[in-house]
């Protein structure tokens, strides 16, 4: 199973994400932001970092890259799964592939720490443990959307992860969500930072492996 790690100027979690994907059974490859074809991949990952220096708003400039046109086509063709982590999630929101937006943390500063997350019983994460510990590292992680949007996300079981103790003021403690047909996933925590024996835990590995199984299940 092939996975692309998209690299924008300012992306800084690309190599960790690449290694995490390899450990999770994917054959990973880096794809530069001016590349316009993604048909060869089963999973597209937009990794964390500060694409275009977070200028204007996080993700606001990256969304106009040629590769994002290819990501949009990839999604509309239902070719595979798109996963945005942290800054990647912000890019997906700015691009409108996921609803809502990310704002500055309620506390006003950068947060970097492990957090406990409740794993919602969804199609993707039905078979992994109900509580995972993952790292967060962000200044703009307060997910906001209007009530109507949140209600719709809940009704379609699109909310994937919630913070046990809300660190950033996100609406309803939302840490990860998907679109209605579960082909686009955005998550604020960094699963790639919990995938190796030298990491404190392997909960991130569970997340990537669940996504791999989900890709497999969609095919059959």
């Amino acid at each position: 199973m092939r996975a692309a790690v998209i690299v924008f100027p300012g992306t800084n979690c690309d190599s960790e994400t690449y290694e995490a994907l390899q450990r999770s059974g994917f054959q990973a490859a880096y794809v530069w932001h001016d590349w316009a074809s993604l048909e060869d991949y089963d999973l597209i990952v937009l990794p964390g970092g500060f694409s275009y220096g977070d200028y204007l708003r996080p993700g606001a400039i990256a969304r106009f890259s040629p590769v994002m046109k290819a990501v949009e086509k990839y999604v509309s063709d239902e070719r595979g799964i798109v996963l945005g982590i942290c800054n990647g999630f912000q890019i997906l929101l700015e691009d409108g592939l996921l609803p809502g937006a990310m704002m500055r943390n309620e506390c006003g500063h950068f947060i970097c720490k492990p957090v406990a997350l409740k794993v919602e019983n969804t199609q993707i994460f039905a078979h992994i443990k109900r509580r995972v510990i993952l790292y967060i590292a962000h200044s703009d992680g307060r997910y906001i959307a209007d009530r109507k949007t949140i209600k719709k996300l809940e009704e379609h079981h699109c909310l994937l992860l919630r913070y046990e103790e809300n660190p950033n003021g996100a609406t309803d403690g939302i840490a990860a969500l998907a679109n209605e047909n579960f082909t686009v996933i955005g998550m604020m925590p960094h699963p790639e930072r919990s995938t190796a024996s030298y990491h404190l835990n392997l909960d991130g590995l569970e997340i990537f492996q669940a996504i791999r199984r989900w890709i497999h299940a969609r095919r059959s």
Partner: protein
Amino acid sequence: MRYNFLVKVKIAPRIYDPQAVTIEKSLKKLSYPVIEVRMGKIFEIGIDALSEEKARLLAQEIAAKVLSNPVFEVYELEPVK
């Protein structure tokens, strides 16, 4: 012909902005009779267009599609003579 515009982007009124609240609190601490502070960004853009009307439409498109995020921001467009 060049037409200039000022685009003011602000956080929408009902949305909590920690930066503005921090500034508001410190101004109050300095005993200024401040009731509210809101923060935003200002962009000066020069547009090449055949008429002022066409330039204004382009500026509006830029403000709405790129410079602001409608989920939590509002913008104002002002022509500069």
